């Protein structure tokens, strides 16, 4: 079926190539992981959820590592990395992207300051223990203050709480803004909805929590240390909660457009039954949403424990991490498949080695984990006294 009951699949010659390719798919994905991981850290710092005490630092470091690479796909996409600074030097207020630069940078500064406060005690301790060049590096990280007094600790704690509290609306703003960039494109029926920022934000939190769960389980498995099951249980309850909001917002958006049956549906209807039938309806909505929804519901209501909890939590998290990746693909690429003529669909051509191909996407997606590994060599990340209740 073609848009507006067109008999001929008509699209303009300049639409033969989908210009916003895989790099623009993984850009909101990585940004979402930043926002999601940060929310978990704030759940402890601000909302005093004690179960997340041991992973709050871990969540912060993970958010920082994802943040380091959030803008890399954009640089790859532009192909002229040095021009990226122009949006900082001469930002134009009519450009949503130029304002994103400031939102992203300020958020990264906030994240770094919070991390610095959290790790200050460790930096001071290392600065005292280490000699030579490494000692100077540690000392520079302390900014020359090498005494860690109880009063200073109290000041740090207060400021950390304040920054974590400030970080929540800022993280929401950061990722809501990514949704805003797409949602404000009024010429694209598949993107243009005021719900887009909220959908992006919720899916960001879902992907962030799910990714933290997978990373946590992997690290504990590799280091052969016991799992903190009460924390996993609680994390899955939150994941379920955020996912319910995310999933039903996505579904409501479609149902709303379908029921309204307006001019948008004349394009979106054929899009969903045509090019996006497999990746959106079957994979994203049916397989990768319904199954984790049921698994997480089971975890929340029946409270399984031990290995079963671990397997179910990992399975659900893996599916949700993929669900959000599919969601980004379906939004970014799906929207561009619609011809501006409203009379047909273009095709997305997969590439592997090209600059915006699958291989660079995999490399960029792997980079935060490499950064995390490197950082974990120098600073303690997981609070290492979980209660093993197996």
């Amino acid at each position, binding site marked *: 079926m073609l848009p507006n009951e067109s008999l*001929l699949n*008509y699209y*303009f*010659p300049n639409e033969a190539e989908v210009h916003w390719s895989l790099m623009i798919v993984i850009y909101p994905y990585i940004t979402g992981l930043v926002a999601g991981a940060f929310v978990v850290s704030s759940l402890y710092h601000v909302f005093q959820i004690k179960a997340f005490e041991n992973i709050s630092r871990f969540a912060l470091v993970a958010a920082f590592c994802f943040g380091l690479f959030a803008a890399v796909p954009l640089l790859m996409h532009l192909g002229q990395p040095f021009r990226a*600074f122009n949006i*900082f*030097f*001469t930002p*134009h207020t009519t450009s949503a992207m130029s304002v994103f630069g400031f939102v992203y940078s300020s958020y990264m*500064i906030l994240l770094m*300051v919070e991390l*610095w406060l959290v790790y*200050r005690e460790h930096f001071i301790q290392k600065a005292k223990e280490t000699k030579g060049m490494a000692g100077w590096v540690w000392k520079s990280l*302390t*900014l*020359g*203050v090498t*005494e860690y*007094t109880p*009063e*200073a600790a*109290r*000041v740090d704690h207060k*400021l950390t709480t304040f920054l974590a509290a400030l970080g929540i609306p800022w993280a929401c703003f950061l990722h809501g803004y990514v949704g805003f960039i797409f949602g404000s494109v009024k010429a694209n029926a598949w993107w243009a909805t005021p719900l887009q920022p909220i959908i992006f934000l919720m899916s960001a939190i879902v992907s962030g929590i799910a990714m933290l769960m997978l990373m946590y389980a992997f690290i504990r498995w590799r280091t052969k240390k016991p799992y903190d099951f009460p924390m996993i249980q609680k994390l899955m309850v939150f994941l379920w909660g955020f996912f319910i909001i995310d999933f039903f917002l996505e579904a409501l958006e479609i149902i709303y457009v379908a029921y309204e049956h307006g001019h948008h549906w004349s394009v979106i209807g054929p899009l969903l039954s045509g090019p996006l039938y497999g990746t959106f309806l079957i994979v994203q909505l049916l397989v990768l949403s319904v199954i984790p929804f049921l698994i997480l519901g089971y975890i929340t209501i029946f409270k399984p424990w031990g290995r079963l909890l671990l397997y179910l939590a990992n399975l659900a998290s893996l599916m949700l991490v993929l669900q959000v990746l599919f969601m980004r693909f379906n939004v970014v690429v799906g929207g561009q498949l619609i011809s501006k003529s409203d009379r047909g669909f273009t095709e997305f051509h997969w590439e592997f080695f090209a600059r915006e191909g699958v291989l660079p996407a995999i490399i960029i997606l792997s980079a935060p984990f490499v950064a995390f590994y490197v950082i974990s060599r120098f600073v303690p990340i997981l609070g290492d006294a979980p209660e093993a209740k197996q």
Partner: protein
Amino acid sequence: MNISPRSHIYRLIVLLVIVVVGFVAVRGLAIPSSWDSENFYRLDSLEELKLQPMHLGGNESCGGASCHDQERVAKHKTQLATVGRGSHKGLACENCHGPLSAHVSDDKKVASAVIDRENKLCLNCHAQLVSRPKDFPQFDTEANGHWYFDVEITKPCLDCHSPHNPRQMAAKKDKSKKQPKATSEQTSTNGEVQL
């Protein structure tokens, strides 16, 4: 030594101030002096663009005003008049014959203008494309008398059509219902424009 529990915060603030001041300073250096913040472009770029070497001269330069060979001047003018009457009147000479800079430099002819007799050049505009307007002439074996002469897409367009006034020539051929003899202009193969 008794230091303030907030001393590290003060140092952090100083560091952040340095970062902000550094950014403002780098920004000041990076923005071009002629930057127009109203219209978002460098005003100097207009003058710089003017200094770029000219490649295309437009049909006025082909009109013969700067050409010293009077015989050529007359031929150029005649050909321009022919083009001006036909359906190709909206085209620039340089579209098919290459840029002026490759033909004339410092008011002297440096090379012959290009003559491309391949169908590919014609089909750049006249191949069938769904995105072209319906009334724009697009090659069709069934239309415009092509069916009568069994014209396929591989047959040289210039065998029948004058590139300078394609429609008029085609009308003549339709009346005669014969394969026309190519004009001297069309059969020239010495690579030089017969203007």
